């Protein structure tokens, strides 16, 4: 075992995450370095979104720690961009597409400064980049699913981050939007950014990502796509669902309830 002194762009060290008392991710050790597109792949309920939420501080860790650019999250928040799952927000909310993108600039504005002309210009540029410049002023409920997803991506672009997390950006999205999203992600890679994408479609995973991690409540394998996406690894991830982890998780939860 060689001890790596170099600090990674994103590093999970023995991370365990639980909802309530029930662990859903066990002892994840994972180091990722940019630039590149990194896929987090696994079956439903494998904890892919949880992994991303843990890195963003949205769910508490039971054990281990996470470092971004070698530092704790609080010190590097402005360098992190996030695209949540589309279903997590109410798309009937009374805002226009460009107003949603504008939200990406809020973090840098601090508490009381209001967005000005510079922020508005940036927001429009980001919408142009995802091909939605023409419908900037439309209410978000009137956009298609693919367009909504691209609005979310544009908001992340407006954050001007160095490390991006995207949770299922291709789910329920039309082919044209998928192409557009993939093109923008490739541009981010070319700009030297690290992009971590939660993804469920194995067919496209092979061609899109430089590296992947296969997870199913624990890390099954991680590394360059070509060497990781093998029959053996996929079977271990998808077919070899470990009931033991499920059972154990339930047992831990039960113990918490009964005195």
């Amino acid at each position: 075992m060689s001890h790596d002194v170099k600090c990674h762009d994103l590093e999970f060290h023995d991370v365990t995450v639980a909802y309530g008392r029930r662990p859903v991710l066990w002892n994840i050790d994972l180091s990722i370095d940019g630039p590149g597109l990194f896929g987090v792949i696994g079956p439903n309920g494998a904890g892919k979104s949880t992994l991303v939420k843990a890195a963003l501080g949205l769910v508490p860790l039971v054990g281990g720690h996470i470092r971004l650019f070698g530092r704790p999250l609080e010190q590097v928040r402005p360098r992190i961009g996030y695209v949540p799952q589309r279903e997590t927000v109410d798309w009937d909310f009374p805002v226009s597409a460009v107003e949603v993108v504008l939200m990406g600039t809020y973090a840098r504005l601090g508490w009381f400064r209001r967005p000005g002309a510079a922020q508005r210009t940036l927001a429009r540029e980001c919408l142009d980049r995802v091909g939605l410049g023409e419908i900037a002023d439309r209410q978000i409920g009137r956009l298609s699913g693919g367009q909504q997803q691209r609005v979310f991506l544009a908001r992340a672009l407006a954050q001007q981050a160095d490390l991006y997390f995207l949770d299922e950006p291709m789910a329920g999205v039309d082919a044209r939007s998928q192409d557009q999203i993939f093109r923008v992600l490739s541009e981010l890679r070319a700009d030297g950014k690290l992009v971590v994408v939660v993804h469920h479609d194995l067919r496209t995973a092979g061609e899109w990502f430089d590296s992947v991690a296969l997870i199913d409540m624990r890390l099954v394998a991680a590394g360059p796509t070509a060497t990781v996406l093998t029959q053996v690894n996929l079977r271990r991830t998808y077919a070899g669902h470990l009931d033991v982890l499920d059972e154990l998780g339930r047992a831990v939860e039960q113990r918490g309830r009964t005195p």
Partner: protein
Amino acid sequence: MASLVSEFGAMHAWAIATAAVVSAGCALVGTLLVVRRMSLVGDAISHAVLPGIVVAVLAGGRPGGVLVLVGAVAAGLLTVWLTQLLSTQGGLAEDAGTGVVFTTLFALGVVIVTAAASRIDLDPTCVLYGVLELVPFDTVEIVSVNVPRAMLTATVVFLLLASAAWLTWKTQVLTAFDPDAARAVGVPVGFVTTGLMAATALATVASFEAVGAILVVAMLVVPASAAELLVHRLHHMAFVAIALAVAGAVIGYMAAWYFNTSAAGMMAVVLGFEYLVAAVLAPDDGILSRLARRMWLAWRVLCEDRLAAIWRAEEAAAIQPAHATASVVSATPNMTQVPPSRFSQRLALTWLAFSGRVAAVDGGWKLSAQGREEAGVIVRSHRLWEAWLGRHADIPLDHLHPPAEWVEHHLGAAVRNRIEAEVGQQGSDPHGRTIPPESEGKGEGEE
């Protein structure tokens, strides 16, 4: 204006002004509550502030004073905190928890205020229903003008709420729209929400004297809900909600005076009426505009079906001249859905004739050049869709017609040409009938 003022008198003017200001404050806070789907929490807080007020008064605070405001905010936050405690520790559903907490606290307030009625300057009836009519009689002098105490409190609270909204609007909006993303960029979401709850408690307690604990819910929820129907931007919504609330206060008070009934009650009734009008007349989502859109579509489909029917009859006559004598009007080829009534067909044909698309010829109808072009587009859409479905779906030949009969009215030129490129320029549908070519002019029936 002068006659109006003299008729109502300065007393009434003060009462109306107070009602308008408290309503505006409630509407502003209510806008955020409504878009966050937290109307019920607003309801809870508005009731639960009662024990806070009562305790503050018992401790020597005066209605509308700072001590009472603080007591109310504390009680409001206690409600939210207790509800969360019940849900996280007791496993109670959040709505049930809210119901348990606020009713208990409210009842506690009622019990104390009734028991201590003789000792404190707080009347239970006034607390429940408000006494807007009496507001002008309790005044303080400011620069030699006698201003009602309630008006003074309401104005201070409104200015406080408006400046807080102005300063933190973007954070409130981000938190309301996407709490996860807000948390990810470091917004203390819990703190922002607590701020909104405190604002709700403030708006509520400022309204207590005017409208009482029960009807203040209407001021919080109804104007914002009506505004949500009318406009589609959050800041527009806030302004419209405030305007509706002020209108409700003014109209409600005058109507109550006219009918000699409760002012607060009438204000809430007027707000309900405003909501009803918004629901009916809203430009995009209103009942009327939706009805109009449906009827316009039905009419378009009716006219297009007539045009296509005549087109098909002419096509049949051209192929087999022997059948040319068949009545053209009755040519409704294998319609499977309920055919439109004779009257509406007649109406559609009359319109088509009037607009120069068809012309009457000895008992039947004949297409004009314009009518033929438009009908061709519809038949083309129909047959292209049949060809596409026939190729891509395992559907028996006789099942192709009904979907095409519906799709023909919605297929745009771009999709038509794409389908044609895909199924090949074979020029005929699965039934072997010719697919008319795309016309040079712009086709009708496109979205």
